[in-house]
C-alpha cells in the first residue's frame, strides 16, 4: 500500500512537472497569463506529490515494511527509531528522494514568493527549476526507484550502513548538505531565467539571486563543517579533512559561491563583472551536480561512495545538458553583459575583490584538477594513480595564505580609490598585530613558513575586521552618544549585509586558527596498555581500567574504560569503543572525545585482547579543535545577519576621516 502510494505519487509528479515546465516556459514566452497560472499551480502540486512520496518512505521505514526495496536494503528491526528515520538519506535512492523533496519545496517557495512580481523572470525561473526536477523524478521513477518490490518479503533487513548509524551528527550533515546543494539550483534558475526573460541587464534579478545563493551558501558552509565534525567524531583518526573526492565535491561549489558573494558586490556597486558573476552561478550549480555524479556513479574511489548503479549515465547526460545548455546561453548573450562602469584604481576595494576571485578560482581549479586527476591519468596513461593530501596541502596553502591576507586588506580599503594617507592609517595597525603574531607563534614553536604566514595573515585580517566594528561603534558613540553595546548593535543592524560579511570573516578566521593550531601542535601516542597501566600524552596521563563487552539491540560493543589524570589528579573518565554491527566485516571505531575550549583529548580504541586484559589506545591531544566548529557557527551567524536587508530609517552620515564615511543609517544599505 505504502509502496504503491509512494511509487504512484512519483510517477504523477513526473507528469505534472513536465506540464509545469512546459506551461511556464511557453506561457512566459507567449505572455499567456492563464498558462502561467496553471503552471504555478502545477509547481505546488509537484511539491505536494513529492512530499507524499517522501512521507510514504518515512512511514515504510518506521513501519519496517520490508516489501519496499529501499527498506529491505537499509532497514532493520533492531535499529533505533532515530536512525531508522534518518536512513531516509542513508543510501542512494532515499537520498535522491530527499533531494527531490527539497528541490520541489524550494521551487514552490520561489514561485509562491514572487508570483506577483512583474515581468517573466520568475516564470522562466520556475520553468528551469521544474526542468531540474524532471531529471531527478526520472531517476526516481527509473534507475533509482526506492519503491521497488521485494518478494518474498524478508523478515528483517541489514540496517543502515554502520558508519551512518553510529553518530547523531548523521542526522545533521546530510540534510544540511542537500539544502546547500539543492539550494544552489535556485540561483542557477534565476540566472538562466534572467537570460531567457531578457532581464539580464537589469539589477533586480541579481538581488534575488544573491539572497538565495547566500541561504544555500550558509547551509553548505554548515554542512561542510558538520561533515568535518562527523568525520572527526566517527572515523577514529583524529582528523577532520582528508581531501577525499566527496569532501572536495562539497567544497568546490562552496568556493565558487564564495567568490560570487564577493564579486556580486562589485557588480551591484560598480557595474563590473556581470558576465563573470553569471558564469560563477552556472559553475556553482554545475559543480553541485558534478559532486553528486562523482559520489553516486562510482567513477572515483571514496570512503563515502554510495552503492553503484546505472545512475551514472543519467547524471552524465544531465551534466552535459547543463554545461552545454547554460554555457551556450550565457556565451550567446554575453554582449548584453558588458560592464557599465570601470575600474578606477588598482588600490581599491573592488580590485581586492578581483584578486579574491582570482585566488578563489585558482583554488577551485586546483581542487578540481586534484580530484579528477585519477581519471585523467587513467585516460592518458592507463594507470591508476591518485593524488593525495600532500598535493592538495602544498598547492592550496599558499592560496589560503593569500586569501587570508586579502580578507584583511579588503575591508580596510575604500571603494574606487585609496589615498596614501588612508592606506597608512588602515594598514599599519593590522600589520603591527601581524608582526606580533609571527613573533609569538615563532616563540611557541611554529617553524614552517606557511604556519607562520597563516598566523601572521590571520592576525592581520582579524585586526582589520575587528577594527571595522570598533571604529564604527566609536564613531556612532561620539556622534550620537550611544552606549558602546547599543552603538555596536545599531551599527550592525543598520548595515547588515556589510557587517554580516565581517562576522563571516571572523568565523573563517576562528576556524582557520583552530585548524592551524590543531594541525601544528598535535601530540599523538599509541600504546598497548595492560589493565591498570598508564601512558603519558602531553599534559595528560591516561590509565586503562577495564575492557568490557556488552550487547546492545543492534550491535555489540567493546569498550575500554579509561581514567584521565592531570598532575596526578583524576579529571575525567572516557570510554572509547568499537561497535560491531552484524552486517559489517569491520568494527566501527567510536572514539571518545573530551572537549574543552583549550583543546580536545581524543582517545580511540585501536585493538584489544580477547581475554580483556589489555587494549591498544591511540591518544591524541589536539589544541583548539572546538574552535573549528565554533568558527563554522560564526560563519553561519554572519550569513544570517547578512540575509536580513530591511531598509533602515533615514540615513545620517558621520564624517570621520577625510575620505571615508561611517554609515549610521542605510546610506550604503544593499550596496556595500
Amino acid at each position, binding site marked *: 500500500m505504502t509502496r504503491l502510494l509512494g511509487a504512484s505519487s512519483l510517477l504523477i509528479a513526473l507528469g505534472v512537472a513536465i506540464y509545469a515546465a512546459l506551461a511556464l516556459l511557453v506561457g512566459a514566452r507567449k505572455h499567456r497569463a492563464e498558462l502561467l497560472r496553471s503552471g504555478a499551480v502545477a509547481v505546488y502540486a509537484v511539491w505536494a506529490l513529492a512530499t507524499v512520496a517522501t512521507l510514504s518512505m518515512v512511514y515504510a521505514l518506521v513501519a519496517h515494511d520490508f516489501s519496499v526495496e529501499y527498506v529491505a536494503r537499509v532497514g532493520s528491526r533492531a535499529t533505533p527509531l532515530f536512525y531508522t528515520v534518518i536512513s531516509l538519506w542513508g543510501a542512494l535512492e532515499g537520498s535522491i528522494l530527499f533531494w527531490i523533496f527539497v528541490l520541489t519545496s524550494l521551487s514552490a517557495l520561489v514561485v509562491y514568493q514572487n508570483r506577483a512580481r512583474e515581468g517573466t523572470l520568475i516564470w522562466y525561473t520556475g520553468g528551469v527549476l521544474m526542468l531540474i526536477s524532471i531529471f531527478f523524478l526520472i531517476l526516481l521513477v527509473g534507475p533509482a526507484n526506492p519503491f521497488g518490490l521485494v518478494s518474498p518479503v524478508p523478515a528483517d533487513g541489514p540496517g543502515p550502513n554502520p558508519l551512518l548509524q553510529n553518530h547523531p551528527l548523521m542526522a545533521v550533515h546530510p540534510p544540511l548538505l542537500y539544502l546547500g546543494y539543492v539550494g544552489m539550483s535556485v540561483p542557477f534558475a534565476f540566472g538562466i531565467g534572467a537570460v531567457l526573460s531578457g532581464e539580464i541587464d537589469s539589477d533586480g534579478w541579481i538581488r534575488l539571486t544573491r539572497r538565495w545563493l547566500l541561504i544555500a551558501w550558509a547551509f553548505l558552509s554548515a554542512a561542510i563543517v558538520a561533515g568535518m565534525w562527523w568525520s572527526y567524531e566517527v572515523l577514529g583518526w583524529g582528523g577532520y579533512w582528508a581531501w577525499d573526492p566527496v569532501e572536495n565535491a562539497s567544497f568546490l561549489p562552496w568556493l565558487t559561491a564564495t567568490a560570487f558573494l564577493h564579486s556580486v558586490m562589485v557588480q551591484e556597486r560598480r557595474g563590473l563583472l556581470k558576465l563573470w558573476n553569471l558564469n560563477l552561478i552556472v559553475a556553482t550549480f554545475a559543480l553541485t551536480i558534478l559532486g553528486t555524479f562523482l559520489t553516486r556513479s562510482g567513477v572515483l574511489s571514496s570512503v563515502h561512495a554510495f552503492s553503484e548503479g546505472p545512475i551514472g*549515465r543519467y547524471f552524465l547526460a544531465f551534466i552535459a545538458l547543463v554545461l552545454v545548455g547554460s554555457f551556450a546561453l550565457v556565451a550567446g548573450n554575453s554582449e548584453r553583459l558588458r560592464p557599465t562602469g570601470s575600474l578606477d584604481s588598482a588600490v581599491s576595494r573592488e580590485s581586492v575583490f578581483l584578486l579574491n576571485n582570482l585566488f578563489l578560482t585558482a583554488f577551485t581549479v586546483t581542487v578540481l584538477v586534484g580530484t579528477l586527476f585519477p581519471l585523467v591519468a587513467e585516460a592518458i596513461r592507463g594507470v591508476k594513480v591518485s593524488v593525495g593530501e600532500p598535493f592538495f596541502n602544498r598547492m592550496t596553502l599558499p592560496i589560503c595564505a593569500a586569501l587570508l591576507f586579502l580578507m584583511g586588506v579588503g575591508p580596510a580599503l575604500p571603494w574606487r580609490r585609496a589615498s596614501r594617507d588612508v592606506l597608512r592609517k588602515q594598514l599599519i595597525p593590522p600589520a603591527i598585530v601581524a608582526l606580533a603574531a609571527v613573533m609569538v607563534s615563532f616563540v611557541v614553536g611554529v617553524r614552517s613558513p606557511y604556519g607562520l604566514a597563516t598566523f601572521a595573515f590571520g592576525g592581520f585580517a582579524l585586526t582589520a575586521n575587528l577594527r571595522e566594528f570598533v571604529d564604527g561603534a566609536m564613531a556612532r558613540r561620539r556622534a550620537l552618544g550611544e552606549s558602546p553595546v547599543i552603538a555596536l548593535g545599531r551599527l550592525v543592524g543598520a548595515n547588515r549585509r556589510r557587517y554580516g560579511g565581517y562576522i563571516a570573516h571572523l568565523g573563517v578566521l576562528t576556524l582557520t586558527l583552530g585548524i592551524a593550531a590543531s594541525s601544528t601542535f598535535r601530540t599523538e601516542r599509541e600504546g598497548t596498555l595492560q589493565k591498570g597501566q598508564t601512558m603519558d600524552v602531553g599534559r595528560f596521563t591516561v590509565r586503562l581500567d577495564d575492557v568490557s563487552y556488552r550487547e546492545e539491540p543492534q550491535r555489540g560493543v567493546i569498550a575500554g574504560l579509561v581514567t584521565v589524570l592531570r598532575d596526578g589528579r583524576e579529571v575525567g573518565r572516557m570510554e572509547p569503543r568499537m561497535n560491531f554491527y552484524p552486517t559489517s566485516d569491520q568494527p566501527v571505531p567510536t572514539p571518545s572525545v573530551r572537549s574543552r575550549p583549550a583543546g580536545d583529548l581524543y582517545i580511540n580504541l585501536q585493538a584489544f585482547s580477547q581475554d580483556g586484559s589489555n587494549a591498544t589506545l591511540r591518544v591524541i591531544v589536539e589544541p583548539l579543535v572546538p574552535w573549528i566548529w565554533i568558527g563554522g557557527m560564526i560563519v553561519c551567524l554572519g550569513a544570517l545577519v547578512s540575509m536580513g536587508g530591511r531598509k533602515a530609517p533615514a540615513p545620517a552620515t558621520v564624517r570621520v576621516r577625510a575620505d571615508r564615511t561611517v554609515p549610521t543609517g542605510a546610506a550604503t544599505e544593499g550596496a556595500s
Partner: protein
Amino acid sequence: MNWRRATLAVAFSAPIIGLLGFGLTRDPKQIDSPLPGKAAPAFSLAVFAPGEGETALAVGDTVRLAGHAGKIVVVNFWASWCLQCRDEHRDLSTAATSYFDRGVRFVGVLYNDQESFGLRWIDEMGGQTYPSVLDPRTRTAIDYGLYGVPETFLISQDGRVAYKHIGPISERLLSYKLDSLLRDGARTP
C-alpha cells in the same frame, strides 16, 4: 543570441564531459585479485545447513577443502541480509544438483551472519540443495580476500582458484565455467 560564441562555449565543455564519460567505463575498485591461478586457501569449516539429497552432509560435519582433492569445488559466500544473494540462490541450487555426478561439490559459506538467520533464510527461499558452513571470525572470507557478498570462487581439480565472481552468478555463466573446467580436467589427468 551570438551563435559563434555559443558554439565556442559548447566546444569548451566537451572535453570535461568526455572525461567524465570515460570515467564511467572504469571501475576504480577493480583491482585485480591475485588469487586466480594460485592455490586456493585451505579451510575446514563446520556444516550448519545440511543440504538436500545426495549432496547432503550431517550438521556439525567438517568440510575440508583438502578432502575434495580431485574434484571441482564451488565456494559461494553469502548472508541472509544480502539482497543480491537472493538473485543467485536458485541458480546455485540447480547447478549443485546437476553437476554433482560430474564431480563438482558446492559449499556455501555464511558470511557475517547468525546461524539461526541463515537457516531461516534457507527455509524462506525454499531450501538449498548443497551444504552451508559457518565461518567463525570470517577467517576464510579474509583468506579469500572477500570484498562483499555474494562472491563465488571456482576451485579446479588441482586445488587452484580457477575463477572468481563478484556479485550474483547466473546458472548460464556457472555452467559455462564448470564445463570448460571439466574439459580441461579431462585433458590433463
